[in-house]
Structures are given as C-alpha cells and as structure tokens.
C-alpha cells in the first residue's frame, strides 16, 4: 500500500471492512437475473423440451449455452448473497450461524460448478449425440 491518505484508503469500506461489495453485487446480479430469467421462461414456454434430443439440440447452441451459463453464475451469486442475509438475521447461535454459512458456501459453489459442468458437457458433446 502506501499510496493515498488514511481517509482515502478506508473510504467506502464501512465498519464491516468489506464495504458495499455485497450491496452492489446483489443489485448487479438482480438486473442480470431479471434479463436471463425472462429469457429462460420465454425459451421454456415457446419450445418443446419434452425429449432429450430437443433439449440438447437447443442447449448445445452457443446462443443457448452461454446465457444458461451466465444465468447459473448470476443466480448462484445472487442466492448466496440473499441466503447469507437470511442466516445472519435468523440464526443467532454463533456455532449454528457459522455452520449454516459454511453449508451455504458449499451449496452455492457446488451448485454453480455442477450447473456449469452440465451445460459445458451438453454444449461440447451435444451435436455429436444428436447426430446419431
């Protein structure tokens, strides 16, 4: 460090030392979620995905796989922030709160990586499968 005044270095960090990052990320992912969820709902309603071939044919296209991956990233980031606040508000014991937050971390990161792996697998292998 060593650059800037003391005030300049702490400005925006607040008493919790993490500043407004949580608040900002919650809102940025909210806007992304809104656009991407409208896309997902419109896609699901306007197409027939009752068979595996239909779904894979659609989800293997970049125009579907990329928004789906972005949706997973945005949604799991947003739900982690939201559930964090829920736990902080309602789970009062320190041990229970810590355990809940660790479980949430595993859930949100595990869920995100699982979703991205599934999307990537369909996207990269999809065309070959459907072609049979």
């Amino acid at each position, binding site marked *: 460090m060593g650059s800037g005044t003391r005030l300049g270095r702490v400005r925006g960090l607040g008493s919790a030392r993490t500043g407004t990052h949580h608040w900002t990320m919650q809102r940025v992912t*909210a806007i992304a979620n809104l656009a991407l*969820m409208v896309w997902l709902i419109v896609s699901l309603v306007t197409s027939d995905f009752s*068979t595996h071939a239909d779904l894979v044919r659609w*989800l293997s296209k970049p125009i579907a796989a990329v928004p789906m991956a972005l949706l997973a990233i945005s949604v799991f980031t947003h739900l982690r922030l939201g559930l964090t606040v829920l736990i902080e508000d309602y789970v009062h014991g320190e041990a229970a709160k810590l355990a809940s937050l660790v479980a949430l971390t595993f859930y949100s990161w595990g869920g995100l990586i699982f979703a991205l792996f599934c999307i990537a697998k369909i996207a990269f292998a999809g065309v070959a499968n459907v072609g049979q």
Partner: protein
Amino acid sequence: MAQTGKRPLSPHLQVYRWGPHMLVSILHRAMGDGMAIVGALLFLWWLGAAASGPEAYQSFVGIIWQAPDSASLSVTNWIGRAVLIGLTLAFFQHAASGIRHLLLDTGAGYELKTNRSWSVIVAILPALFTAILWIAIFWGAL
C-alpha cells in the same frame, strides 16, 4: 443484561398497523429464499438429468411433467406442476418487488401514498402474470 429496570423498549413488529409495504417486504424475502432452495435444486436436477443422457432426462420429465407413454398425470406430475406454478409466482413476486427496491434505491417512492400504491401493485401484479402465463401454457397444451 445488567440493567433490567423500566427502560423504554424498542417497538417490535406487532405494534405497527399492517400495511402493503410490510407484506411485499416479507414476501420478497420468502419468495427469494424459496426460489434459492427449491428453484435452484430443480434447475440442477433438470441440467443434471439432461447431461446424464436420454434415459435420465426422460425419467426427470416423467416425474415432474408427464411420462411420454402415459395419457394421464401421476401424483408426482401434479406435485411437479404445482411446484412449477409456485416457482413462477415466486419469480414474478420477487422480480416485481426487486424492481421496486431498485427504484427505491434511487431515492424515489418514499412518499407515503406513492410507497403504498407501488406496494399494492407489487402485491397484485405477480398473481395476474402467473395466471396469464399458465393459462397460456395449458391453452397451448389443450
């Protein structure tokens, strides 16, 4: 608590007159956290089944929506459809309420009447959107 004398207590929820802004506030949290668990798990189940192959995907569709070789709906189909309807209601509720929050973040909408009317809209509109969406879905299916 060292001091337990007759000190003033902070007013809690039950002393306030219930209003639409309180309803949409708690609905925002309930719907958001509901989707964070039920919606996200269903999303992962869907993607996981799709990535596991045709049989796994057919089994998922058969449990949640309708088995391809069956003319009638099973018990799990009714539950699956109820969950999907609930999730769309939760989405529209959380989205409408979220847009209200984004607008409130700009400093707008704190006048009592404005705040009240926005809250009423946010409470009613999602049910309307959900009804229209599902009527459209089942109309197309019929």
